[in-house]
């Protein structure tokens, strides 16, 4: 007979979060603790279905006794920990990180970034126009995906989703070093010649819109993308018997985008090409 490892019941750990005492299960991160008490921390490279990459530094918080600030998305809570998420040091760090990112990257399609900037008084333009990276042309080399690396903050989430954490296709990775580091297919080939299978799981996790669906990109280009008019309804895919959850983003009675709920035990936010793109037939009216 097998012995199934079900794990031991988790103890609760008590810590102090911005002066308040909080109890969370051991193994939780500081970010988890913040979420549990309804405190919102800006994050970009953090993915709820991915292992922390610790790349963007937007979620840094102050831990008493720690020489440096710590990334809240990966640092696990410890008993007696004293965490400050709104201290001057934290605010200053967040402001500078956002200014650096914002000066070198097009954050125009990054959700919430404007709120975060104004909350900490970040001004990305203060480094002057010279700080801007050269605009990279948007890559449209296939009918389903658009890659706009001018918006890429090198958070690695797409690489992790395509790689061994979910899709295991390994179509993209980081190429180059230092300032030249960028996300690329093998030998920078166009997507149709790469190992890409168009599951869209990289787009699902992209925090800035550097990766987007062609339909969304086209509608943004012609000014007809309007999230205020969109509804989101979760239903089930019909292309096999696995039962993947699809969230249909509908605008003017047309499906304009498909995502998948990250908390679904079937998909964990992942889909295949058919679930992600196989919906046009219902609206060939």
């Amino acid at each position, binding site marked *: *007979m*097998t*012995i*199934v490892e079900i794990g031991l019941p988790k103890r609760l750990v008590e810590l102090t979060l911005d002066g308040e005492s909080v109890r969370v299960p051991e193994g939780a991160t500081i970010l988890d603790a913040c979420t549990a008490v309804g405190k919102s921390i800006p994050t970009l490279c953090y993915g709820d279905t991915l292992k922390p990459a610790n790349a963007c530094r937007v979620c840094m918080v102050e831990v008493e006794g720690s020489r440096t600030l710590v990334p809240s998305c990966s640092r696990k809570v410890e008993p007696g920990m004293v965490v400050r998420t709104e201290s001057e040091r934290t605010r200053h760090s967040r402001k500078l990180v956002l200014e650096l990112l914002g000066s070198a990257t097009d954050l125009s399609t990054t959700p919430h970034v404007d709120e975060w900037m104004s909350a900490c008084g970040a001004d990305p333009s203060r480094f002057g126009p010279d700080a801007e990276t050269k605009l990279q042309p948007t890559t449209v080399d*296939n*009918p*389903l995906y658009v890659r706009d690396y001018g918006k890429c903050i090198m958070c690695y989430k797409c690489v992790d989703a395509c790689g*061994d954490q*979910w*899709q*295991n296709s390994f179509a993209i990775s980081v190429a180059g070093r230092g300032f030249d580091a960028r996300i690329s297919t093998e030998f920078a080939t166009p*997507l*149709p010649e790469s190992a890409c*299978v*168009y*599951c869209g799981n990289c787009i699902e996790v992209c925090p800035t819109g550097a990766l987007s669906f062609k339909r969304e990109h086209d509608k943004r280009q012609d000014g007809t993308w309007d999230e205020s008019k969109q*509804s989101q*309804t*979760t*239903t*089930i*895919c*019909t*292309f*096999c*018997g*696995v*039962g*993947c*959850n699809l969230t*249909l983003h*509908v605008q003017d*009675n*047309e*499906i304009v985008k498909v995502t998948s709920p990250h*908390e*679904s*035990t*079937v*998909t*964990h936010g*992942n*889909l*295949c*090409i*058919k*679930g992600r*793109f*196989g*919906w*046009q*037939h*219902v*609206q*060939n*009216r």
Partner: protein
Amino acid sequence: MSTVMSRRKKTEPYVRLTQPLVRDAGVLRPATWDEALDRAAEGFRRNVAQHGPDAFGMFSCARATNEMNYMAQKFTRAVIGTNNVDSCNRTCHAPSVAGLAKVFGSGGGTSSYQEIEDADLIILWGSNAREAHPIFFQHVLKAVNKGAKLYVVDPRLTSTGKWAHRWLRLNVGTDIPLAHAIAREIIASGLTNTSFVERATEGFEEFVKAVEPWTLPVAELETGVPAELIRELAHAYAKADRGQLSWTLGITEHHNGTDNVLSLINLSLLTGQVGRYGAGLNPLRGQNNVQGGGDMGAIPDRLPGFQDVTDPAVTAKFNAAWGSNIRAQKGWNLTQMLEAMERGDLTTVYIIGENPVQSEADCEHTVKRLSNLDHVVVQDIFLTKTAQLAHVVLPAAAAWCETDGTFTNSERRVQRVRKALTPPEGARDDIEIMSEIAVRLGAGWEHKTGEDVWDELRSLSPLHTGMSYRRLEELGGIQWPCPREDSLEPSFLHARLWENDPVKRGMPATFSPVPHSPPVDELTEEFPFRLTTGRRLDSYNTGVQSAGFESPLRKGETLDLCPQDAAVLGVVDGEEVKITSRRGQIQAPVRIDDGLTPGLVFMTFHFPDEIDVNVITIEATCPIAGTAEYKAAAIRIDKLPVKVG
């Protein structure tokens, strides 16, 4: 030999149906809803009056909701008065349902996706899950990346096989010899789970005798799998803490599909790899609701919740609830209905969302049979090839995004389907259309929402009683069985087999000493190549839906063969060739695939409007489940004469 030549042609994507159609003087013309519904009902009434209720057949839809399937079988049984209801599960996994139900009493996969991740050995048999069930395969890869061993049994080296620790390349149609040899090796090596076999099974002695001839060398000769690999798989499976055995259509789409399934179930009984967390048997279902269609009773021998239609106590319960008069006898399955059409015993059919003209093996034969009928009603979102043959065509709403209801997936999880789009003007909800026809036939059906229908089903099917819409919402779906609203059952089935108390243990699981039976379509000098069929990642079945989006991966239909065969035939990649079987002839371009071996060729069935592969497949069907042998046709390949000028 009837020879049909299909020519390649460019096709446009289908456009939604928004206007009912009726056939007058041989031609389909637009009609009002009232006229079309009257015509549909009148045709059913006429045929039933003339020939009795068994002249009627219902092709229910494995892609529509549970609620629709429940109503379709209720319509068939309570309004018409026959048990002739079935769906396209017949073309794929009916043998899985038949085999599992025979041994364990219920026809569902026994484990959950999470258990796949926690297994330490996974066998995928006749399954290209990487392409056909990509998100299931992500769960497999989670296990593989944690250290689980993956064995893939397949005649082709597929993208799934490339992830395997061991690939067992067997000859098409030799699954039973391979399974028997694995069993014999387990027994001979003393690795039988004796305590499980003694307590929970019966028929072991007879089984031992049946597998005795299949020694490793004999099996190697028949299956082509090296003895050492068979031995390794046998020992690994028997010794695994948690062994998972999953299969797809490579097992079921044979003339003896149910026997194939039973031969795999035997292995789980022998080793006790079933009824425990992490150990189990899982057919990977091909349609979103092919599990649910069967669960809802849209099959000829079971009422909702797998309740036996031949049990008078069961029919009495349903008759009391429906005010009906169901006969306690099995109806015809889809295959038998098609045969009955040919004999003239079945004269009218109500086809909901199915495309048998293109999905059945030997499709020209299917067209002839449907053309025999007095009255064909097709309810669909498109004017499919099947709808083009109908007398009445009723435009339906798309179940998965234009209606409210539920689907049931491969892990028996019932999940909510929600209306996200308003159907196009003129298309109507499946259940509403069916109710309109029922009312015209004198049934007192009132309008019911998806939830109303579901609650009625819950009151009649103990498997589903505890699954209210509210609970499904809260819990992100619930796996059956779920008899109570205040609790959940374990994520795996058949834990009872491990009980100490014989009463709780219940019916023992029976070993099946099934015989080997090679493919019906024999390889001869005239037809020397074995053709097998399957799916590709970006396409789906007859392509009616998947052709609606542009895929960078799509290369169209090809005849895939290995480089050695291409060299012998003198053909190159992309060259058009003539493909002939005992039933028909088609043309397709060649694609070279290193994953194939000499004598074995592969095609999909995704592009029937361009190249209709089912013109050449064989309609030899499994006598138990009625599934056709799509996986093994004998063909010849001829180089086309070089065009001059």
